[in-house]
């Protein structure tokens, strides 16, 4: 048993979320694929080939089937913006978005070059001349918008971690504080970003008053909304991690008569690190999901705004571009999760833990 009676359950479901992730071999029971696997295992294929087939070929087949079904279904769905785009149209739009990006970059480079030449000429004429350097103000491309989104989610997540880990540690160490804060945590945890955003917007515009703001208000709004939504898994998992330090290890610290601070630093925190990372991983996932919605409403120039603008724009290529964004969002989310997983593997002592 971990921790005090009646203390751990509040967070266990969050913890279970990562542990109980499905095992593809037992839950996915397509007979044909199963037969393919058994066939591969039974025959005399070299192990490497079998592994390659399992890890590469089978997913590729699944993707191909998905693309086929999507393409076939898309042809039969007529929207007010024309036919629902299939894989080919989306692929073309992805290329188009990349082309737009390089074109915009070329324009920016040309702008800066012209500006420099102009300034150099001015200075040559009169060394005391005042030289103005203006930033290029083209519209943000798809790639720029991914960058903005990443920056926003990083800011929000960083803020959330900065708050959640100390709060979690304190809650884990003091049953009284945990009892005090738990109802608030449980009530705020399920609140949607769409509900937070209007409040955040009003509070930010009331408090963040500056003639020359360093950060755009839309950015601050989105980042704070992300923070508010992704605090909770880190708080809960850190609490559980700190509260469920093995009794044997605490006995060791009692026999050694470690002081409160040494005990916390040398025993409690290290043993909570695996669960802290679990919480942070869940938080980052939630943060990225929430961000898109926040950006749509806050008009922060990121992926969410891109989707919204394309939707409002309503051109014949809009749906395909939105689908490109959908894939980009998924891919970035996946990479963020893998990144956290790598960090977790690097920092966590619990190398034996199965991490998916």
């Amino acid at each position, binding site marked *: 048993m971990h921790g*005090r009676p009646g203390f751990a359950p509040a967070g266990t479901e969050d913890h279970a979320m990562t542990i109980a992730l499905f095992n593809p071999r037992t839950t996915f029971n397509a007979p044909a694929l199963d037969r393919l696997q058994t066939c591969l295992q039974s025959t005399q294929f070299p192990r490497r080939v079998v592994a390659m087939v399992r890890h590469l070929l089978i997913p590729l087949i699944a993707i191909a089937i998905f693309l086929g079904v999507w393409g076939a279904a898309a042809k039969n769905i007529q929207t007010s913006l024309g036919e629902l785009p299939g894989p080919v149209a989306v692929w073309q739009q992805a290329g188009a978005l990349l082309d737009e990006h390089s074109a915009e970059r070329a324009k920016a480079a040309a702008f800066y070059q012209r500006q420099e030449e102009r300034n150099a000429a001015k200075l040559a004429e009169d060394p005391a001349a005042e030289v103005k350097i203006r930033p290029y103000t083209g519209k943000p491309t798809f790639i720029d918008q991914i960058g903005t989104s990443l920056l926003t989610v990083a800011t929000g997540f960083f803020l959330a971690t900065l708050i959640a880990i100390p709060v979690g540690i304190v809650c884990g160490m*003091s*049953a009284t504080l945990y009892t005090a804060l738990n109802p608030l945590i449980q009530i705020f945890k399920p609140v949607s970003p769409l509900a937070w955003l209007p409040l955040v917007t009003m509070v930010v515009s009331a408090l963040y008053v500056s003639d020359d703001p360093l950060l755009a208000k839309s950015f601050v709004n989105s980042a704070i909304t992300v923070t508010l939504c992704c605090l909770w898994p880190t708080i809960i998992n850190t609490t559980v991690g700190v509260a469920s330090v093995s009794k*044997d290890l605490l006995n*060791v610290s*009692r*026999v*050694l008569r470690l002081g409160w601070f040494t005990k916390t630093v040398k025993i409690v925190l290290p*043993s909570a690190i695996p669960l802290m990372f679990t919480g942070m991983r869940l938080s980052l996932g939630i943060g990225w999901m929430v961000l898109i919605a926040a950006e749509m409403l806050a008009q922060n120039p990121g992926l969410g705004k891109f989707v919204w603008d394309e939707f409002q724009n309503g051109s014949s290529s809009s749906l395909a571009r939105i689908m490109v964004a959908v894939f980009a969002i998924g891919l970035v989310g996946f990479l963020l999760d893998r990144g956290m997983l790598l960090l977790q593997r690097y920092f966590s002592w619990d*190398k034996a833990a199965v991490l998916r």
Partner: protein
Amino acid sequence: MTYLNIDHVGITFPTDHGPLEVLRDVALKVDKGEFVSLIGHSGCGKSTVLNIVAGLLKATTGGVLLENREVDEPGPDRAVVFQNHSLLPWLSVYDNVRLAVDTVFKGSKSKQERHDWTLHNLELVHMSHALDRRPDEISGGMKQRVGIARALAMEPKVLLMDEPFGALDSLTRTHMQDSLMEIQARLNNTVIMITHDVDEAVLLSDRIVMMSNGPSATVGEVLHIDLPRPRDRLLLADNPRYNHYRAAVLKFLHERHAQPDVPAQPRHKPALKLAAG
């Protein structure tokens, strides 16, 4: 003067079914340098006795005196070797022992001395080859060796061992017993060891304390093991006195105090109550 005096200790735990008296009137005097084994059926409260001596649990009645001073909190002078080794999984073998050395000898030994002392104790348990390994990279027997090194490094007045080899396979266990005898011959520590292995108890101990079944368990019988040291398990196998001792312990455990089929009261190991704050 008695070195360690377990003076009529009793302990009662509150449970959902009312108070449960686990120990009643446990009295035992241990001399300096003596190796005492506590043996009894599981659940009889052996570990509870050990935890009271360690200071991890507080006796309800009676008390423990070490060199005539009452034991009222845990401390490194009563180092514990836990059954499940209890090494910190994120520290290397060296760092696990070093943490104890640094804590106990912070004021009295220089950095270099603490380093040497750590190495010396790991040498004693033959673990010098694995200083940088983490606990999950070494075998169960090796972990227990490190646990013993950590306890020895505290230079305890009494070494408390809670079924130290209970989780090991029998071959590893015999190796560990031999190692322990070798260390004991060199250091002559005062040791209280809990076991439920009769051979282990006879082989290692100067005295075997047999405990009656709980609840309200107490010291049933005490057996002096008068066998010359160093002891060799192979030679002892045919020694009539050794076999007499074995038989005496077995008789106590299986004739007079056989585990009752249906316990009179629901029995469970009382969990140590710990304040995490």
